[in-house]
């Protein structure tokens, strides 16, 4: 720019010079040609004019130079701003990528887990054709929720909470009562399972978990989640008939004592999946030995959520004092059976119907040990209609350690009766509950003898935990993919009213046949 100006100025000055020295053209008479001397080209005035012009040009140049500087400064500033914008955009892009990565990681983490649970509303009626029996009607609610999923590629786990009294593991129901008080919620499940990708046949589970083995109401209420450890070895085969063979071991810890021996159950199960045409069957055989079950008859006030306390000591008796436990409290002896009225006492939310006795110091004990041998055959036969398969469940269970003879309501040995150790179950139904619109209805028959299983853990909705004859009619309908409506009619009675600890209707005497107790349940279950 400066050189351009310089080159412009020089010709300009030169032009100025020429302009100054050019002779003036005036109208004059033609002169005769004379030979005369030329006048001087530049005068002092001319120089002065030139100087003034030069000065003016220099001022202009200076102004232009300053303007150029300002322009350069502006361009530089714009360039810097542009660079800043580029840097900001780059950083934003990087941050966005980082955020996307974090979001993907978060999505990946959250996606590994699955929220789940259900809400059940129940209307229930109980009635018995027995004078003195007060019909019972109640509304109940059950809420269960939690999450489970992959901790990593080889481990899964989960945590679930549920409603229900802390003193009764056989139910998660809460009755509409207690003046709109809030309902109890407790830890229902918490477990980790190791199922390595490299050895998918192996599953090792620890914690408080859902049943991992095949079982029915006979050996444990469906609401119970045992605690301890389970090992499962499951092998799929490619044979034409036998599709799977599974071996399981279980160690269930149910009472830990600080300064004494612990109580636990140890056992194993072998099961298989068989397929032949339309028929699929899952036979299983389980053995479960209960070590030191007497702890269940000497449970703490917290364990039973006692509602009263006191002492029946002969030397220092204390009458019944109410305490704020949620219940059900101590399971008392019935029909001649003797059990403590105050903690430590029997833990059996639905009644202690096993045979028991008191030792010399007044401590209660089970009449028989418990060694379950449980055989189940679960069958499904495809009919012509895919949504209406025929289901047939058969079970035979025997307490191999039961005493030879039971004790009657007088405390005497009933030598006319053999072991009260057997359970027979048959459950037949048509249909399934898998997809929207599915329907299943069925009938079950159960004969469960007194010492077949531990009463503390048996099915909670049947007439009594043991020593019963039970019929059950049921129907289930899947209204929506996540909503099931169900109806169940329990129709049962005590099997042998002569036995110690047998449950009798009000006013019923030992030896009399108990009238059937009916229990109707209407359920609506929403799962998520």
């Amino acid at each position: 720019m400066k050189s351009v100006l310089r080159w412009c100025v020089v010709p300009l000055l030169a032009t100025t010079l020429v302009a100054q020295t050019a002779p003036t053209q005036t109208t004059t008479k033609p002169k005769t040609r004379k030979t005369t001397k030329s006048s001087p080209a530049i005068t002092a005035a001319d120089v002065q004019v030139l100087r003034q012009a030069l000065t003016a040009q220099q001022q202009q140049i200076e102004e232009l130079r300053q303007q150029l500087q300002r322009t350069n400064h502006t361009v530089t500033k714009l360039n810097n701003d542009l660079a800043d914008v580029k840097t900001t955009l780059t950083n934003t892009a990087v941050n966005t990528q980082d955020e996307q990565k974090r979001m993907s990681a978060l999505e990946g983490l959250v996606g590994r887990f699955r929220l789940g649970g259900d809400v059940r509303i129940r209307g229930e009626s109980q009635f018995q054709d027995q004078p003195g029996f007060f019909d019972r009607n109640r509304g109940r609610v059950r809420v269960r929720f939690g999450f489970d999923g992959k901790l990593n590629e080889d481990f899964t786990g989960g945590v679930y909470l549920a409603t229900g009294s802390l003193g009764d593991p056989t139910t998660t129901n809460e009755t509409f009562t207690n003046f709109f008080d809030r309902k109890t919620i407790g830890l229902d499940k918490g477990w980790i399972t190791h199922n390595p990708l490299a050895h998918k046949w192996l599953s090792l589970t620890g914690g408080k978990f859902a049943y991992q083995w095949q079982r029915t109401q006979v050996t444990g209420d469906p609401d119970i989640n045992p605690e301890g450890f389970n090992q499962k070895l499951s092998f799929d085969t490619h044979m034409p008939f036998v599709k799977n063979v599974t071996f399981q071991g279980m160690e269930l810890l149910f009472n830990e004592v600080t300064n004494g021996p612990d109580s636990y159950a140890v056992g194993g199960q072998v099961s298989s999946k068989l397929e032949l045409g339309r028929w699929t069957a899952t036979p299983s055989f389980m053995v479960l030995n209960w070590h030191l079950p007497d702890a269940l008859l000497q449970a703490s006030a917290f364990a039973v959520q006692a509602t009263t306390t006191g002492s029946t000591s002969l030397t220092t008796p204390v009458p019944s004092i109410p305490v704020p436990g949620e219940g059900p409290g101590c399971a008392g002896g019935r029909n001649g059976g003797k059990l403590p009225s105050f903690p430590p006492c029997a833990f059996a939310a639905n009644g202690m119907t096993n045979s028991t006795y008191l030792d010399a110091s007044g401590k209660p004990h089970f009449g028989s040990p418990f060694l379950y041998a449980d055989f189940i055959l679960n069958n499904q036969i495809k009919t012509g209609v895919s949504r209406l398969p025929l289901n047939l469940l058969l079970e035979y269970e025997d307490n191999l350690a039961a005493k030879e003879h039971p004790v009657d309501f007088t405390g005497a040995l009933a030598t006319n009766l053999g072991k009260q150790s057997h359970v027979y179950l048959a459950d037949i139904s048509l249909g399934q509950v898998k997809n929207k619109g599915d329907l299943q209805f069925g009938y079950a028959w159960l004969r469960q003898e007194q010492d077949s299983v531990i009463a503390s853990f048996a099915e909670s909705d049947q007439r009594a935990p043991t020593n019963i004859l039970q019929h059950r009619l049921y129907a289930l309908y899947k209204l929506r993919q996540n909503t099931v409506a169900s109806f169940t009619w329990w129709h049962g009675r005590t099997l042998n009213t002569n036995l110690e600890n047998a449950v009798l209707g009000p006013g019923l005497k030992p030896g009399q046949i108990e009238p059937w107790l009916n229990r109707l349940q209407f359920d609506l279950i929403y799962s998520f």
Partner: protein
Amino acid sequence: MVRRCHIAFLLAVVVVLLPCLYAVERSYQTATLVGVQQRHRSRVLYYIVNTPVTQEDPFYQVSVQLKNTIYVGEYTPRHAEESLPGNWKPGESIQARIEKHFMFLKRPDGSELQFVIVKRISPANNH
């Protein structure tokens, strides 16, 4: 003696770390989609006494052929509405990366989906 201990220690470190060389991520290769299937797995939600109430959980089974081996992988979507890319059809080419237990397939947007390999089939043995 000390020198021998040092050498032994270094050898032990090398032996321990040697398998890590195989942990280096392998690169993507072009494979051919053999099959894409949506299937369902029954899961028991809860029991009503002895009756199971179940739910059908969807999962995808994808087979790809890479060189002479067909890899069958399973993918469980995070939610029921998640689906595989629409252009994943048998016969189409796809970028695949095979690890020990996993098969990674590249989606059209560049992200990858992780499948658990459940089967490896040699086409020669499959006839």
